[in-house]
Structures are given as C-alpha cells and as structure tokens.
C-alpha cells in the first residue's frame, strides 16, 4: 500500500504553489474581485503554457497525458490561491465531457485550446432554482436537417459570460426520451449571455439564453443524464481538491492571525476558545484530506469505487472548506468582516464551490445510495 502522492507529484505541487505565489497573490485576486475583468486571462494562459491545465488531456490533443493525480495536486493549489480562473468549468467539466463522449473532431477542435489556456468551456445544465433532475430540464433541441438548434434558458452558468463553448443539456422537442447533450459555441447567433451577480465575484457567472442556437450532439442521444453523472464523479474529485486547498489556507490564516493578534495582554491563540476552534478546523481539514486521497486513488485507477469515493471526497471537502472559511472569519473578529481582509475571499469561494455541480444535500444522497448498494452487494 502506498497511500500518498509520489515525490514527483509533491514536487509538482511545490512548483505550482511557487508559480501561484508569484502570479496569483492577493493583488491579482482583488483585481478580479473589484475590477471589470471576469477572470485573470494572463494567469489562465500562464497555467496553460506550463502544462498545468493539460495534465489529464492526452498528448495527441495538446495535453501532458500525465494523469489525474497530477491534476489533483494542481487543483489543490488553485483552490489554496482562490485563483480567479475557469479551471473547474473548463478542465474538471468541459474537458471531461469531451474526453468521455466527444467526437474526434470535437476533441481535436477544443482540447488543445483548453490545455493551452486559450479557450474556456463550461457546462450549462441547471435551469431555475432547486435540485437539478432530468425533469427540471426544459431546454429543447430541434433537428433541422443536418443541424440541431437549441432553445431555452440556463441560469448561473459558471464562466458563461466568457466561455467559448458550453456543453448544454436539452431534450428533443416533443420527445421525452431522456436528456441529450450538445456542444454549443457561445459566440454564435441565437445566444444571449447576461452576466449575473453571485456570492463570489472572483468567479464570473452568466445566464445563457438560447434561441434557435446552432448545436452539435455530444455523445449518444438520450444518454445525457448518465454521462453527466459520470463526469460529475470525476469533477467532484478535482473540485474537492480545490476545496481542500481552500480549507487548508483558511485554517492557516486563522492560525497566523491568532498568533499575531493580542488581547487581554496575550495572543488570542493562547485562549482555549480560539485554540479549540482552530483544532476543530484542523480535524475537518484532515478528514477531508484523507477522503480526497481516496477520491484521487479511485479517479486515477479507474476504480469501480469511484462513485463512492467521489461522493465521500466531495461531502467531506465541502464541509471542511465551509467550516474553515466561516471560522476563519470568527477568529479574525471584526477585521474578518472587512472587505480589506482576505477572509471573505475564502468564505465566498467555499460557498460557491459547495453548490457547484450539485449542492451538499445532493452529494449526501449520492453517497448514501452508494453505501446502501455496497451493503446490499
């Protein structure tokens, strides 16, 4: 048994951390938070130039073909830096859809650009509010000879304002035979994008309105829902590592502040109420790390346990990041509630990632179904 990352993977993690310390410090994150740019284009391109975006993408499509363990350590560092880049939408989701179900032409067209940081892709699935189910998808697809056209509205699409293409879930008009997936270029006619305000302005979102927009089928017709679930299992592990990185950093920020802030003539970190709060944050982050390693193992080996492992990592990392981010503010006291301090960057990101690809309760359900099936087996 070897339940750890290899020396080379740890070295890669160090390299990514140094790169991000240089190119994605708080000034860089705040430029996106406070400014008009939707994401940090130079950073995105820089990540692509170093091969960090193409870890999982085969060499034939411009990636490194390195593997998922490498992608996990990169995701962790991006989460730690609250990097304002479209990693989860482009790499954890769009690239995975293409690799699992894309045609050769679709892969050849988009994967090299995603790997290079020259394109942004995303998933446009959810409509309205509430849990996403097959029945909640109202967007329709109509075939006109050789082409398909989509009509419908998708809410809160991550990077929907800047993405070059989206994987769109829709049902055939008059159909009812199950969800199908389509690839839609968002710069084309019949697509209206409206940026929306979210809890985390460092990761832009938009509403997408399709009105007879041209689309290409992605994967077999009517099998979209199953495909989404398979991609979610993969994306969940990568996003869990982002959450883990964020949780660790929020814990460190709280610890550092507790050491430097004095009250009652002593560092507040010597008060048991503060110590115990930080110890509990450490417990959450440690449980999440161990569960994420389980997810990384299952993802990298193509294990049949991936659905269990992904749900385990996702639930644990979501809880840990939310716990550490909210208590980091608590340790900072009033200063933690200011725009000036960075605590809110983590609080925002933790709550954004908690509901991306399905909220915590959805993943709790997935986990319980896996455990029940395993028990019955």
């Amino acid at each position: 048994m070897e339940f750890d990352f290899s020396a080379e993977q740890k070295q890669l993690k160090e390299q990514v951390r140094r790169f991000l310390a240089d190119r994605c410090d708080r000034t860089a994150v705040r430029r996106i938070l406070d400014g008009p740019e939707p994401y940090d284009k130079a950073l995105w391109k820089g990540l692509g130039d170093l091969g960090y975006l193409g870890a999982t993408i085969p060499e034939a499509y411009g990636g490194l073909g390195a593997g998922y363990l490498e992608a996990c350590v990169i995701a962790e560092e991006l989460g730690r830096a609250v990097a304002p880049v479209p990693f989860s939408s482009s790499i954890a989701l769009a690239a995975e859809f293409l690799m699992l179900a894309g045609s050769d032409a679709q892969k050849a067209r988009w994967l090299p650009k995603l790997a290079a940081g020259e394109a942004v892709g995303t998933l446009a699935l959810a409509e309205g509010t509430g849990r996403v189910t097959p029945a909640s998808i109202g967007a329709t697809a109509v075939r006109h000879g050789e082409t398909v056209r989509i009509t419908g509205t998708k809410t809160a699409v991550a990077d929907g304002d800047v993405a070059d293409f989206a994987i769109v879930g829709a049902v055939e008009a008059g159909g009812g035979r199950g969800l199908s997936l389509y690839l839609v270029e968002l710069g084309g006619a019949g697509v209206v994008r409206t940026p929306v305000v979210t809890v985390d302005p460092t990761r832009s979102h938009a509403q997408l309105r399709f009105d007879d927009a041209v689309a290409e089928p992605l994967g077999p017709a009517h099998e979209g829902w199953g495909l989404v679930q398979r991609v979610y299992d993969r994306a969940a592990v990568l996003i869990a590592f982002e959450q883990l990185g964020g949780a660790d950093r929020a814990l460190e920020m709280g610890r550092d502040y507790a050491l430097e802030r004095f009250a009652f003539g002593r560092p507040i970190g010597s008060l048991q109420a503060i110590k115990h709060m930080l110890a509990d944050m450490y417990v959450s982050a440690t449980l999440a790390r161990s569960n994420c390693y389980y997810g990384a193992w299952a993802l990298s080996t193509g294990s049949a346990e991936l659905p269990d492992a992904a749900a385990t990592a996702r639930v644990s990392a979501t809880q840990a990041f939310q716990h550490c981010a909210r208590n980091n503010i608590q340790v900072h006291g009033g200063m933690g509630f200011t725009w000036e301090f960075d605590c809110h960057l983590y609080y925002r990101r933790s709550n954004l990632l908690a509901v991306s690809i399905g909220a915590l309760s959805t993943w709790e359900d997935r986990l319980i179904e896996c455990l029940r099936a395993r028990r019955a087996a």
Partner: protein
Amino acid sequence: MNFDDTPQEAKFRAEARAWIDANAPKELRAELELAGFGQPALRSGDVLAAGKAWQKRKKDGGWACLHWPKEYGGRGATPIERVIWQQEEGVYAKLSSPFLIGQGMCGPTMMAFASEVHKLRHLPPLASGEEVWCQLFSEPVAGSDLAGLRTRAEKDGDHWVVNGQKIWTSGAHYSDFGILLTRTDPNVPKHDGLTMFFIDMKSPGIEIRPIKQVNGASGFNEVYFTDLRIPDDKRLGAVGQGWKVSLTTLMNERLSIGAGMPTGFPELLDLCCTFDTGNGLAIDDPGVRSKLATWAVRTSGLRYTAYRSISALSKGEIPGPENSIGKLVAGSTLQEIAMFALDLQGQAGVLMDPALVEASGRFQAMLMRSPATRIEGGTDEILRNIIAERVLGLPADMRADRGMPYNQIPTRTK
C-alpha cells in the same frame, strides 16, 4: 497512490488468512460480532479466559505482537504486515482487548527503559497474554493535569516505598504487572519530580477496588498503595525523569495505529437499512440521509487517515500528527450515533433489556459507554489543546503553577 497489496503483502495476507481460518474460535464469532464497544461480555463464558486462550494460540503460531522483535515474543513484522493482520483478524481482535494497554503502552515502555534481563523475563508472557499489564498513571487529583500526581515514592536503601492512590486503572483487578508513575521529589517543579517503576500487582501493600461505572460495568479500578516496596532495579529511566518516560508510553498511542477507532457507523447503517419508521425505511428519510452522510465521511476519513500514517511508517518515516484526531472524532461520533439510533427507535429507544430488544440493545450500550471514550486517555479538550499546540503551533496554556515547586502549588485546601 495505491491500495493494492504488493506480491509479498498478498502472500502475507494469504498466510494470515489461512492461519486464522484454521485456528480462530469460530464458535464465538456471532457473539463477538454483536458485542458492543469496549471489552465484550460473552454470554457463553469467561471473556478473559477466552481472550487468554486466543492470545496464547496466536503467540504459539507466531502471530502475537507482530511488530515486536522475535526475542521478546513478536514476529519482527513490518508496519504494513501488522495492519494486514489486523484487517484479517477482524472481529476476533475484540478478544484481545484485555491486553491492549499492556502490549500497546507498557510493553514499548519496557522495551525503551527496562534492562535486558527484565525485557526477556517480562515481554514474552506479555505478548502471549499469560501475564496481563496495567498502567497506573491517573489519580483523583491528577487526570488531565497528570504531572500534578501525588503518589509518593521514597527511597529506603535499595528499595522505594510507595504510598498513595491511583484511579481509572483499566484491568487492575486481573493484571499481573503494572507501570507506575510516582512523585519522588515534591520540592521541584511538578514535571521534574516524577519517577517511573514497574511493579508486581500481587505485591503486599496493594489494594484494588473496582469502580462501578455509569454503564454498570467495572472495567476501571481504584488502586491504593500502603508501604508498597519496589526494588530499585524495577525503576524505568532515571530518578526525576518519569515525565519523559511517560511521554514515551503516551507516544506509542500515536504509533499503535489500527484499523481506526470504531464510530458505530456500520451498525447505524445496518439499522437504517432495515428499520421501518412507520414511514418507510429510515434510510429513505432525507433527514436521516444527511446525518448518515456526515458520520460516513467522518468514519472513512478516520480510516484513510490511518492509512496515510501506515504509508509513512512503511517508508520508515515518523507518522505526522494527523493521527491525533482519531479518538477526538470517534468519541463524539459514537455518542451522536448512539443518541440518534435511540431517537429512531422512538419510545422503545429506552429499552436495554436483552430479553426485549433486538440486537441486544447495542446502541443503548454504546450510549452508556460513549461518555468514557471522550474522557479516557486524554479528554476531548486535552486532545484539542494538543492539536492546537503541537500541530498548529499555538501558545501553550497559561499555567498558574509554571516553574513553582510542586509542594507550593495552590490546591483547594491550601
């Protein structure tokens, strides 16, 4: 990142499995599976005798204290082999609970500080379960503040004379030997005046009184010493170095990594998959599912945290501090799960009567035992202090007795 056995590990696992299959007391299996937490009670007979029989058989087959050197009764196995053994031994490991403290804590302390003669005399029968050991540390006034203990050892020629009282001594009533932490110098600060010994529990001057616990059982004892005489050659470490020696003992807790501490989750999942609330199966209730998910990821998190430590050990590294979370997480989870199971059972949740309750009232037994898990071997609060100070590097607690000679430390009576 790899969970699979290497060929050597697979071979070892097959060997262990075959031996267990041929030698384990299979007639006890069903009862052990249903047994609650802590030391199991066997309706079919004397649990200590059954435990000693299993331990002796393991020793004779070369499967006791796997990581100990062979000359002391072990197998000289690697950390990974030890874990594989634990996985294969499974439910039968419950039979070895009377030996956990002796083999997990007293043995390693003896290995580090006893003379070779004593090691060769005492470690093999400790490994075989023929001699049981206990750990005499806590006192009525010295629990979390262990270094504040009072039991006095005074030099008398080549002997020491001990007077005082210990408490919460697990298994003292069936132990043959024990390691004993005493105060030998009350005139210096509390950590500097302690000395460690090992003692024969059958010596004159020792009186053992069982403590009746919340759950009605009596696993713990009070132990009184009246002019107990200990030869100086049974001292472990130098005079005044007892605190350092005790840290070796306690450090071994971190290294004695098993399959992770029980949280009660598999038992609760079983209940929820089979229990009809009147509104369908419990597991189909969204509120139940959410709680189950939280306890599931805590349980798996503990398991994989232990795996990470094992990986470090197998590479010859010292495991990181991550394993310090084990008991802290497991204790409160056990208690929460027990309370939740009773809640699911509704008014019948009060029943502990084995004649009336399915599954022998295991959650009720868990409920009544779980408060101890959160206290013994370091309270939740002490564990949080340890994580905060040793892992996160936060300042130590401010102490009113810092640097003060022991005999001048304020107490309730002075």
